């Protein structure tokens, strides 16, 4: 996503270097380097007395423990480790002795510099924070050095640092950061603090072990759903199955008889059952007899939504980018047109959505795992009728986020339930409710018309039609009819095309809530662009990689990735019948990636993933092993959607309900995956979503190569690619 920092309120360096420490250690987050604190739900607000707290991210106590406060959330992407590596690198902290804390809600202190709000998404944690983290670490280091130099009465420039110690080589003296913590607190950081030369990095670029994983092998890691409080009740929820519908009449006589059921909470659009445990709550919900007022969407179906979207996509859109003369471009050479369609998708995080709330007359405390700390706080405050500062949010590890936890709806519903419960209540959605009341990846329809002359593209007119998620979620990202997410990788065209034009048509599906889904706008754009590139290559009579190479001269990083992917994948080597290789390239999220999928299509149209080769230039790979892991996992996530992912609507209801009918790729279907990380000195790019975007078009193109069938819609329709009947 291209959101220039200057366009949005960012966290200034000054904020980071001078900001105090609001809130503090409020959560049951446990890392092996930090003793205790597991399952102790409420910690007293931390204070910084006796600690060196030079900014909102770092504190060092007199024992030398360096605590790093994590402004971004950990949902599996490894960012707690990467952020810690960057801070510790410039601080010269002993990495074996860092402790981590989840940040409390504060846009001012912990706002994502690209968004201006405390949000984790868009694969930008490292991109957005890179300079700020380095400066924060380097500034703190300078203050420690100044304190030591003062004590020794030497020039600070004659001191060096390593492993949480300041050293004065000439005199052989050393002082630990712990010993210096108090004195450093009264130092002022230098104005232009020097940053390390990347060649001197000792942590960044090394495949270090993650800090969050040791407690994930033994059951100690605490996710939002694991919050346990004294006298806690457990609730689960039944929302009107039709989008926008309301509760009519409720017969709860059977539910009330179930042992362990404590209370039935009837709200506007849902009914919740509160019990002694989830089992009672779930049995209670199952026993409810509810008449719903289904409302205006009661007859809504997927076919209506597609009919409307297809009609909308035939109209002109708002211009997102125009280069050259598109009318002239489209009247030159051979013209090719195609339309690509993507379905609604649910997130299906392995940890179903949940929130635990303890509401009193003048306070609200929440335990959850969210990608949007301050939004949960402000939305919960509204629901509770309390001022924002009366709402405490304890964030936890996330059992997957994928964009679902960029929404605050779970916290709001839990507050509404908590209003009718004495003491804390944990609200957990069943998988069925989680899938049927998601905020869905929107349906998209992309139309592209292009012209070819001398084996190259002369004109390219690309229209994206679908939801404007930004208009709801982040209004500055929706301007003059263009959703910056919707056209993100459409306007960031990697190929050199002289006449180039991109439009956006806002087409909101009635009734169905839409939101960000891992890979966001680029998922749609890259699928359409890269699928179409293969169709154009065929029309031009060229090999798909050769065809792309011819238009990538001005994009050397992507070209290098493509060349290496061709080599590593064995591109061009013979394959058996009905086996094909497909390629995709993308400059999305500021990382340059080329992917080759090798797949086999059997006579029934079933697809077997044989092998994936992925090459990435993400700039400086802060933790190269994490980069590999994110691509491996992201590819599986995207390929899962390509093979199976589709949420459909009938009578205003989602037809899928659980993993039996909303299928996931499993280990026995997973391909071999090789990821090659190109060494680079460029600033870090984004990585968490890139594999998701890369997989589907490469698979689609592999199927095209294997069968000759040009699929234009996901998920893959087996009936179109089955072998000919004998």
């Amino acid at each position, binding site marked *: 996503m291209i959101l220039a920092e200057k366009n949005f309120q960012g966290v200034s360096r000054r904020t980071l270097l001078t900001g105090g420490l609001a809130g503090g250690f409020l959560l049951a987050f446990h890392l092996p380097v930090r003793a205790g604190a597991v*399952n102790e739900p409420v910690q007293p607000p931390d204070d910084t007395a006796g600690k060196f707290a030079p900014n909102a991210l770092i504190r060092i106590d007199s024992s030398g423990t360096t605590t790093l406060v994590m402004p971004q959330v950990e*949902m*599996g*992407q*490894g960012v707690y480790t990467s952020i810690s590596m960057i801070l510790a690198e410039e601080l010269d902290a002993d990495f074996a002795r860092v402790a981590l804390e989840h940040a409390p809600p504060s846009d001012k202190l912990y706002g994502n510099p690209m968004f201006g709000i405390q949000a984790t998404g868009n694969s930008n944690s490292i991109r957005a924070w890179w300079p700020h983290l380095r400066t924060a670490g380097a500034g703190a280091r300078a203050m420690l050095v100044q304190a030591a130099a003062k004590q020794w009465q030497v020039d600070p420039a004659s001191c060096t640092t390593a492993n949480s110690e300041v050293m004065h080589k000439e005199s052989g003296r050393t002082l630990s950061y712990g010993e210096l913590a108090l004195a450093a607190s009264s130092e002022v950081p230098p104005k232009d603090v020097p940053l390390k030369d990347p060649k001197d990095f000792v942590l960044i670029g090394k495949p270090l*072990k*993650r800090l*969050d*994983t*040791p407690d*994930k*092998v*033994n*059951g*100690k*890691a*605490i*996710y939002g*759903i*694991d919050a*346990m409080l004294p006298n806690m009740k*457990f609730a689960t929820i039944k929302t009107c199955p039709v989008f926008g519908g309301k509760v009519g009449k409720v017969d709860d006589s059977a539910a009330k008889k179930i042992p*362990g059921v404590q209370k039935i909470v009837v709200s506007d659009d849902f009914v919740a059952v509160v019990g*002694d*445990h*989830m*089992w009672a709550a*779930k049995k209670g919900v199952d026993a409810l007899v509810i008449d719903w007022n289904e409302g205006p969407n009661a007859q809504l179906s997927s076919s209506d939504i597609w009919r409307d979207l297809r009609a909308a996509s035939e109209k002109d859109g708002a211009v997102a980018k125009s280069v050259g003369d598109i009318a002239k471009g489209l009247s030159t050479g051979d013209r090719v047109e195609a339309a690509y369609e993507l379905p609604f998708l649910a997130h*299906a*995080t*392995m*940890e*179903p959505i949940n929130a635990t709330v303890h509401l009193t007359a003048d306070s609200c405390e929440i335990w959850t795992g969210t990608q949007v700390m301050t939004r949960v706080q402000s939305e919960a405050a509204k629901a509770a009728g309390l001022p924002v500062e009366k709402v405490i949010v304890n964030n936890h*590890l*996330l*059992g*997957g*986020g*994928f964009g679902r936890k960029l929404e605050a709806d779970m916290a709001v519903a839990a507050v509404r339930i908590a209003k009718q419960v004495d003491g804390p209540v944990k609200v957990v959605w*069943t*998988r069925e409710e989680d899938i049927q009341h998601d905020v869905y990846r929107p349906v998209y329809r992309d139309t592209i018309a292009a012209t070819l002359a001398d084996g190259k593209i002369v004109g390219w007119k690309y229209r994206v039609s679908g939801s404007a998620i930004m208009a709801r979620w982040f209004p500055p990202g929706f301007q003059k009819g263009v959703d910056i997410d919707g056209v993100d990788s459409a306007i960031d065209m990697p190929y050199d095309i002289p006449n180039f034009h991109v439009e956006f048509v806002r087409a909101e599906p009635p009734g169905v809530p839409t939101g960000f889904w891992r890979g966001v706008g680029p998922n749609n754009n890259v699928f359409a662009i890269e699928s179409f590139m293969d169709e154009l290559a065929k029309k031009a009579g060229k090999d798909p990689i050769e065809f792309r190479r011819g238009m990538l001269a001005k994009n050397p990083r992507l070209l290098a990735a493509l060349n290496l992917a061709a080599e590593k994948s064995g591109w061009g080597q013979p394959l058996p019948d009905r086996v094909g290789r497909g390629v995709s390239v993308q400059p999305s999220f500021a990382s340059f990636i080329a992917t080759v999928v090798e797949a086999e299509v059997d006579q029934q149209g079933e697809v077997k993933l044989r092998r994936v080769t992925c090459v990435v230039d993400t700039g400086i790979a802060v933790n190269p*092993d994490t980069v590999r*892991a994110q691509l*491996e*996992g*992201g*590819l*599986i*996530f995207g390929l*899962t959607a390509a093979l199976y992912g589709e949420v459909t609507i009938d009578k205003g209801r989602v037809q899928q309900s*659980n*993993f*039996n009918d909303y299928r*996931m790729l*499993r*280990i*026995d279907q*997973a391909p*071999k995956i090789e990821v090659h990380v190109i060494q680079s000195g460029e600033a870090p790019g984004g990585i968490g979503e890139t*594999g998701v975007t890369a997989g589907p078009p490469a698979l689609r193109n592999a199927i095209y190569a294997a069968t000759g069938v040009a699929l234009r819609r996901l998920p893959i329709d087996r009936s179109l690619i089955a072998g000919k009947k004998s």
Partner: protein
Amino acid sequence: MATTLTINGEAKSFEVPAEMPLLWVLRDVLGMTGTKFGCGIAQCGACTVHIDGKAVRSCMLPVGAVRGRAVTTIEGIGATPAGAKVQKAWLELEVIQCGYCQSGQIMSASALLAATPNPDDSDIDAAMAGNICRCGTYVRIRAAIKQAASQRQS
């Protein structure tokens, strides 16, 4: 009537309906939150525990059906030779991302290795296909099982 179970070698007593799934007894009654809820219909494997050493999905297993049998959960699996090897390999190969499914993955892998010390790919497929990972860590899970299998009994 109180139910008594032996969980990770310790006797635990509680009063719940006999048809209540073991998952919710562990999580909500005993506060052992390492075992995860994922689907409730034995489709995802997040809730996997061992009953007498065999991997089972606790979300559909009535607690009344396991009286007198040995229950092992993720909190106790490190005390078994196979479990310890699996945990070690999981960390060495940095399998884990969000980690939510990994309690179940580790329980399934430990049961596999205890029964089949040198599993081949089809053994791994058969034992692990019931465990979904949304982060997509399958490539590393397979490699880590092989690495754990190659380590000597410690």
